[in-house]
């Protein structure tokens, strides 16, 4: 049992009403489901979820089934944030302002095709919660590269002979540039940290964004039973650090575990099978640099520069 900053406990949240129903169509080991269950437990039934084309658009179930348990709107691929803004506006104008409006979108619909709508809604500080479950490629269409795919990873459009040559887009810094009230990264391996961030987001208003590292056995070419372990290794290797940003300026690293070996993280994922020692070194160097940048931001005195 762990206390988070809001005084609630992981255990008390776990005992809450399970809004999400069984019968969803997720792969075994898919990271969406455990996160979504917790998300809905925190936000409750007075919630509407908007989802663009992504794995969850399929996972929720075909007409007339829906597993999510709250009003659910599918929207076009590039429109998640704009659609959520429309739902928010409608509920406000109909005199029902207490409904949580949540986007649940993949990395493609967030980092790539939905990026313009995301930026627009963030700039307008729309009163919504945008949850990006980032499984680091277009998994629903069969594992194609997105701008969230990490440096060196295999996908069907970045084959072993030409793995991804660019690093993962730094969405946190971009969103910080929009000065949104809240941005946080989360991982299933650290549920207490995740719940605390959900609670924090729920207690705020304006544009809040959760960036969730979402395990994907299919796309990562890894065993379903290793998913939580992989999620933990991603944080430990600083491939996916856990942090939060308040108002675009106050950065805080929320989980700072003992570093783990990147080779260990790569070894159990087929998407990194082709990685040579020199490539591993290059990726390690890249992650070290990113971590230093993040640490600097997180430790910078608020009045620096004056």
């Amino acid at each position, binding site marked *: 049992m762990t206390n988070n900053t809001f005084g609630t406990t992981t255990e008390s949240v776990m005992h809450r009403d399970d809004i999400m129903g069984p019968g969803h169509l997720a792969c075994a080991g898919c990271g969406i489901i455990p996160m979504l269950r917790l998300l809905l437990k925190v936000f409750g*039934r*007075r*919630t*509407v979820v*908007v989802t663009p084309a992504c794995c969850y*658009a*399929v996972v*929720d*179930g*075909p*007409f007339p*089934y*829906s597993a*999510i*348990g*709250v*009003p*659910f*709107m*599918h*929207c*076009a691929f*590039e*429109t998640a*944030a*704009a*659609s*959520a*803004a*429309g*739902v928010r*506006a*409608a*509920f*406000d*104008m*109909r005199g*029902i302002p207490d*409904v949580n409006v949540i986007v649940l979108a993949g990395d493609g619909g967030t980092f790539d095709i939905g990026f*313009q*709508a995301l*930026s*627009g809604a963030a*700039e*307008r500080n729309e009163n919504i919660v945008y949850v990006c479950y980032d499984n680091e490629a277009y998994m629903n269409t069969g594992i194609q590269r997105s701008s969230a795919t990490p440096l060196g990873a295999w996908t069907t459009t970045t084959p072993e002979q030409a793995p991804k040559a660019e690093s993962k887009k730094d969405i946190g810094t971009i969103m910080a540039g929009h000065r949104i009230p809240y941005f946080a990264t989360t991982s299933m391996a650290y549920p207490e940290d995740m719940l605390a961030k959900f609670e924090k987001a729920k207690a705020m208003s304006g544009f809040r964004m959760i960036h969730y590292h979402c395990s994907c056995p299919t796309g990562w070419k890894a065993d379903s039973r290793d998913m939580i372990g992989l999620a933990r290794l991603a944080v430990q290797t600083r491939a996916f650090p856990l942090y939060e940003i308040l108002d675009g300026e106050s950065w805080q690293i929320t989980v700072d575990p003992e570093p783990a070996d990147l080779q260990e993280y790569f070894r159990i994922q087929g998407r990194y099978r082709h990685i040579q020692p020199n490539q591993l070194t290059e990726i390690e160097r890249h992650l070290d640099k990113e971590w230093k940048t993040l640490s600097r931001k997180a430790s910078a005195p608020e009045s620096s520069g004056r």
Partner: protein
Amino acid sequence: MMRVEEKTAVRVITGNEAAAWAAFLARSQVIASYPITPQTSLIETLASLTAKAPGRCRFINVESEHSAMAACIAAATAGARAFTATSSQGLLLMHELLHWASGARLPIVLVNVNRATAPGWNIWTDQNDSMSQRDTGWIQFYCESAQEVLDTVIQSYRLSEELRVPSMVILDAFFLSHTAEPVEMPSQDLVDCFLPPWSPEFLLDVDNPAAFGGLLGIDHYQEMRGDLHEALHAAATRVEGVDLAWKELTGRSYGTIEEYRCGDADIVLMTVATASSTARLVVDSFRERGVGIGRLKLRMFRPFPDELLRERLRGKRHLIVLDRNCSYGSNGILFTEIKGALYGLPEAERPQVHGYISGLGGRDLTPARIESMVEHALNHAAEERSVWIG
């Protein structure tokens, strides 16, 4: 019944302002828009009207037309009356979501200011932007005057909400969008009487959770599209009732088509939008010369009122169709559509159909240009293809 005359005021306003006033009077609850010439004065007027009436409407300055339509779709899915306005490239950017709005059966109203499509950049009127959206499942009205714009936007909400299909109200760039005319302004009471609050049967409701727009298999998709098709067709007759209800309150009505001196005519000139006014003058001029000509204005383009058109054009000798658009590699769009409709008449009762394309990119459809089409039609056998008039 309300005594209308006592409740109206006349304002001299542009077509764009008339559209804005109509969206405001219709109590649009969510307006999402993105600026594009020549639509801008429309959304500027709406921004001003809604800012002065806090709590009445959420005006969202989205970052693109695509997001404008996305926000309208979502707002309507959540039970709000939604409005947007655009033009040309903006409408084309919305294309994907036009299909979504009709497929989701949402009664959104969109005003499109007809403008040519790039390249090259041309901000003047033609109909290729909206007519190329003809297969998206939206009702389409083309307007001739600022008054008709105002009345049609309000009528569209009622028609759309009754049938759960979206409506597009279309006006010519500058010739109508920026031309000021006296417009009778209905009172708020009158509009409220005509257009009660929308209460949708299906909506995002936390007390009754449901999923909207998810996976639809082979067993259901075709039936849902068939329902949409039927609803669109129903609009062709339902619009008459809506128009009549509006007439009872305001004295004004428009129909799906408007005929001018067509009764005894054996030649009919078919037009849409502002060219219809010019065509009326051309008809008068030919009538003075003893030519038996009339003008048929098509107000409703989708659904295409083919039955009514067959009835009215049965036995006419010549039909002259003016297209301010072109389906490249085919013909003028109205020319093609009306020929398809007239095929339903016995051959002996079908008029010869002469198609003309002119007025693209804002080229003025002067009386002389329209006269030259009529002269051409009177002196030539009908050609297979639309004839371009420079």
